[in-house]
């Protein structure tokens, strides 16, 4: 049994620009992702993180290097459909991903195209909608849903394909705080309860901090890879790259720098409270 979801081996991707110019969007990226892992990918606009995401289900192919999905190389054409079924993608704009006029028909679109028998489609659609908490809306028109609900329908559409992994490319960028919370809760539930592998591309550090692991991409290169605690202790490097850190990490880092003897890598409010209480409790 293959335990690696992705084995990314020295992947580079070069785009052809106008006038024969070339642009290297990814340079020699090597990375492995285990099954059941929740990995966040952060980086500024144009860093290459979406390009990387599109390699994970063979929407783009490496110009150098190789990428294995559950041991299957994306470079072999016969693996293509298998890979795309194993790795589902969810994009930023919910309105661009929904094709049908009724929620459950939209979710059925994928399995129908796979040639799944109707009875099984019914089962898959019902189950997928249940897992994202949208069963009550199955007869609704997607147009009448909120942004967060639309993204959950998009996720259900992916789940109905029975993937082993979901890649989400800034799924919450267009949502309000309530919608953002809905989507993140859904994704975490899939990861915790079903062991779904999750790759989350995001600009929101408070989302990244909830992942098992974070990869930082800059100018097409993998510059950091580690747990949120390992990554977010590099406050000045991240800031220099144009990224943020979560408030507790930022605050504990600044306090440590000022000379207060506290750990500088608090990830949550609770950790920060635990660190500060012995020093600052009101008398």
């Amino acid at each position, binding site marked *: 049994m293959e335990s690696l979801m992705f084995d990314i081996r020295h992947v580079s991707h070069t785009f052809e620009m106008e006038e024969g110019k070339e642009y290297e969007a990814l340079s020699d990226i090597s990375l492995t992702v285990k099954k059941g892992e929740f990995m966040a990918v952060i980086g500024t606009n144009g860093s290459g993180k979406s390009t990387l995401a599109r390699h994970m289900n063979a929407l783009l192919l490496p110009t150098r290097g190789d990428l294995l999905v559950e041991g299957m190389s994306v470079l072999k054409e016969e693996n293509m459909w298998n890979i795309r079924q194993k790795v589902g993608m969810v994009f930023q704009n919910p309105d661009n991903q929904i094709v049908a006029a009724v929620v459950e028909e939209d979710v059925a679109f994928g399995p129908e195209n796979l040639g799944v028998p109707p009875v099984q489609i019914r089962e898959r659609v019902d189950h997928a909608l249940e897992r994202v908490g949208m069963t009550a809306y199955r007869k609704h028109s997607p147009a009448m849903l909120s942004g967060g609900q639309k993204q959950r329908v998009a996720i259900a559409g992916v789940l109905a394909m029975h993937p082993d992994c979901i890649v989400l490319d800034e799924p919450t960028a267009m949502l309000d705080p309530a919608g953002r919370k809905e989507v993140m809760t859904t994704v975490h539930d899939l990861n915790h309860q079903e062991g779904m592998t999750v790759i989350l591309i995001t600009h929101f550090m408070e989302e990244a901090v909830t992942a098992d692991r974070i990869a930082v991409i800059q100018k097409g290169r993998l510059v950091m890879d580690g747990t949120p605690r390992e990554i977010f202790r590099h406050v000045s490097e991240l800031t220099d790259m144009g990224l943020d850190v979560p408030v507790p990490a930022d605050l504990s880092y*600044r306090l440590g720098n000022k000379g207060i003897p506290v750990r500088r890598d608090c990830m949550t409010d609770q950790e920060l409270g635990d660190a500060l209480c012995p020093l600052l409790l009101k008398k």
Partner: protein
Amino acid sequence: MSIVVEKVSYIYGGGTPYEKKALDQVSLEIHEGEFVGIIGHTGSGKSTLIQHLNGLLHPTSGTVSVNGVDLAEKSTEASAIRHKVGMVFQYPEHQLFEETVAKDIAFGPNNLHCLPDETERRVREAMKFVGLDYDTFAERSPFRLSGGQMRRVAIAGVIALHPDFLILDEPSAGLDPIGRREIFSQIRQWYKTGRFSVILVSHNMDDIARLATRLIVMNCGRAVLDGSPMDIFLHHRDILQQSGVDVPPLTKTLEYLQERGIRVPLAARETEEAAQALYDEWRTRGTC
């Protein structure tokens, strides 16, 4: 100079089964020199409200007037005054259409029948305003720029209209942290020039807390809170929660520390400000 919204109600799809009251008896006044933040969840009525402020929508009942002119009137005065309220929509870069950056920004002034010299002056000025070098970018295609640059071109197109009020709907949506920082520091700088008042719609409470002088919270088509941002964040948590909006992350962390019994500067807007206060507190303890 001011925008006066008086008892404005707006009903979408009146007389159909989908009839929905998007604004319900909203009254407020926005004065010259203010920096107003508007927050509220999706569907709270905030977009409907801002579309009334420059006459893109007319009230079902009530009036909106700018400098005393009712925007619903069909007079030339009313159409002229609408140009005084510039609107930057969400993802404004989707509205770019011209061959070059300069032509795209010139579209507005041309429609105002500015003479060519005046148009060029405005284009140069607007590009400088948004931090795009004229010689580098004027002749480039707007579609070959980065997302952040395209957005700045779109904003320059509105600034070239010389508005007195600038409305920005989620100007940082989809931008990375540095893009967000850049666009907001620029908005702050524009605001400081005193050339226009700013009305900012955002889900980013951090930015609202840092920039706005006044905050309006929308819920169910009503302005349920209207006051200083920090006062609202600190003293009206129940209404904020009902309205489905958050408080800034820093405020949330500081509130948690306070619950644990630590003395904190709850109203701090910047992390450094909070860190300094906590440090001072620690120092005082050490010496006594």
